[in-house]
């Protein structure tokens, strides 16, 4: 065990300068976000399990078959999938160092995300109008909670994305903002994947 100099907390070669040092810290933060995503998978997994257990517990009340209107759901799906694609474009422009392109595609992504939320909220409100609420039966409790949790994730992502656009506008593309965009695009793709499961397990299997 020798005492050698290394000015940072990571391991690897000892002669890192400050610049690489920074890079190291940013990559550790991305790894941490992957870990967070693992925990979020468990969180959604638990909600899906709950939904599956209660999928027949309509208690004699309205069934998903009667309530779901697929055109709106299909529209939501395409909007969210497209937003995942545009967030990918934003990352491509970031790697090219094109600040305008980055912010532009982030704006498109956020607008698509906002329209997704708008459609989802109107769908929920319509259902409440027609008489199904979170307190209607076990099925509807788990429906609103599962789909609502996904929607809440998307909404949080929107606020976060706006905050990031302001930061990029002020500071440009640097290792820190780069890391932040990388993380939010991971988050956005993840929500897309979760939505695929929501579409399949909740909506498609609900109307079948």
């Amino acid at each position, binding site marked *: *065990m*020798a*005492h*050698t*100099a*290394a*000015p*940072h*907390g*990571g*391991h*690897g070669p*000892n002669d890192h300068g*400050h610049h690489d*040092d920074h890079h190291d810290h940013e990559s*550790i*933060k991305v*790894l*941490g976000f992957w*870990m*967070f995503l*693992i*925990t*979020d998978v*468990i*969180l959604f997994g*638990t*909600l899906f399990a*709950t939904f599956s*257990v*209660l999928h027949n*517990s*309509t*208690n004699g009340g309205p069934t998903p078959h009667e309530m779901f209107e697929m055109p709106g759901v299909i529209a939501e799906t395409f909007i969210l999938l497209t937003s995942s694609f545009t967030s990918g474009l934003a990352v491509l422009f970031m790697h090219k160092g094109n600040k305008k392109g980055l912010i532009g595609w982030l704006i498109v992504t956020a607008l698509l995300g906002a329209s997704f939320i708008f459609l989802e909220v109107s769908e929920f409100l319509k259902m409440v109008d027609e008489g199904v609420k*979170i*307190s*209607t*039966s*076990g*099925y509807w*409790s*788990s429906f*609103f*909670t599962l789909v609502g949790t996904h929607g809440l994730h998307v909404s949080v992502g929107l*606020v*976060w994305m706006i*905050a*990031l656009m*302001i*930061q990029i506008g002020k*500071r440009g593309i640097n290792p*820190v903002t780069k890391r*932040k965009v990388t993380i939010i695009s991971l988050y956005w793709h993840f929500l897309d994947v979760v939505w695929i499961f929501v579409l399949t397990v909740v909506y498609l299997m609900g109307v079948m």
Partner: protein
Amino acid sequence: MFKDFMDFMLNDFFITGDPLILGAQVSIGLSMVAIVIALTYFKKWRWLWTEWLTTVDHKKIGIMYVIAALLMLFRGGVDALLIRTQLALPNLEFLHAGHYNAIFTTHGVIMILFMAMPLMFGLFNIVVPLQIGARDVAYPYLNSLSFWLFFFGAMLFNVSFVIGGSPDAGWLAYPPLSELSGSPGLGQDFYIWGIQISGIGSLASGINFVVTILKMRAPGMKLMQMPMFTWSVLSSSITIMFAFPILTVTLFLLFIDRYLGAHFFTLDGGGNPMMYINLIWMWGHPEVYIVILPAFGVFSDVVSTFSKKKLFGYKSMVFALMSISFFSFFTWAHHFFTMGSGADVNAFFAITTMLIAIPTGVKVFNWLFTMFRGRITFTQPMLWTLAFIPCFVVGGMTGVMLSVAPADFQFHNSYFLIAHFHQVLIGGVVFGYFAGLYYWWPKMFGFKLHDGLGKWAFWLWNIGFYVCFMPQYALGLMGMTRRFNEYNFDMGWQPLNVVSTIGAFIMGLAFIFQVWQIAHSIKFLKKEKSGDAWGDGRTLEWSIPSPAPMYNFARLPEVSSSDAWWEEKQRLANGGEPKPLAPLEPIHMPRNSGIPFIMSVFFFIAGFGFVWHWTWMLVPGLIGVGCCLLARSFDYDTDYYIPVDEIERTEAALKGVR
């Protein structure tokens, strides 16, 4: 208007009409006043804020965890003594049924979630970065947030004792009793939000330590060269990552049931109460392994240090830790064999439960073989380790008895079960964390704890433990079940209950000895100067001064074997040349931040608002949390470099101490 307000305060807000609670309210009020006066008189407010409340230093955060855990141990212990007093004199109405329910509920929650967990995180924080040769954890800011979320979650839970009413539906709050229909009071809401808020902190800590261990190790340290305590932290933290999201969801669903009238776990509306019991144990069973695994790590380090030998079976120990983490997720249904899932399901969970005994047995043999032909010194940490082994073996064997599904129909919810889990939790977790505290105390504070008083505490704890819990095995077999406060004299249970209560008070006395021991050791402080307080230290934390400087290692160590510090000492003793010192370089450090503390206060406000259904309070609370998150996101000035001359000055001063 004023009269209405006073009516509300006296009838609903504060709990009134109980002398025990009145006593608590008065003493809480007086001690708060005393703290404020003391801080003002000694002009310590700024010191408190800059040195502690805003710190991101893992060593200080660890110390705060330990202090909070010991306070919670006191409260949980008082709960235990109240329970035992009632059971020794069941017909005296010392605690009426409702009060008794509240006390066994808070005893369980506090001991597991607000005593064992923070004591565990305290040890993680104090030890892991030093053992792996790092300057801090991977995310120091998040680490501080974890602590404050735990702290304010614990406060929210504890405040229910004097404001609003304690939860009283058992430590895991099974529905339908914990639903609005069974528990219309506020206690259950305090339970949900207290645990929820601190649970978010625990989850973040799990992520933090996984990344710390994977990414922050000193140059050259391979995974299979890590100290065993670090391995146990890794296995425990991975288990946290997979288990705690389930708790978050489960409590959230119970909250929606209570707050919005949903039907997840209700008896009507298509709800399914057994689903809650499955979900809560999918978290709850891994949770008990989360707290015991680090204790195994402590014992491994202590045993090899004080036997002056390498740990026997290092690889099998790693394998055992990891396989326990894995299997912990496949045993949950053994908590309710009586639920009626059928023979196949019960057989599956019985077998997985028995499987856990195999890696655990491997560990016991490894510890025994490490001691075999070792030169053992009977220091305080070693005493706790030696007491742990037989205690845990008996507790483990009774666990295997409980895992036999058909037999469990007899043991279920009896005092046999109570004795079993107290034996593994006290004999395993508490003894383990005490061993760890005594072992690393000199590293935390730079002095050892008094030996004589420590031995008194040790023997009283052990005698008290067996006097308290051995009779409970017999009581369980005699048919006594848990969670009732009265029984008739003709049941023949009183003599053993009286013995058990005496044992509990002996453990209470032992705790007083430990407080005395700490006070005495501070008063007659003997500064420990070498850094290697036990002389036999094997791992990197003993290679630096005690307490460690802010940046831990002036030069990051380079590691080429396990037990790196021991190997280096051996090399030097055999005439090896000291390795040349590389020149110092500026050290990159995180800046202190007040945001974690403030954000946790907002979490507390939001939680309190949810409990009371006060929208005017919960909305600002949640907005405050959001603003704190944004404030952090916009802050780019989060770290700095310690210049070389400052490191030189610090190191020179530390050498002077040495």
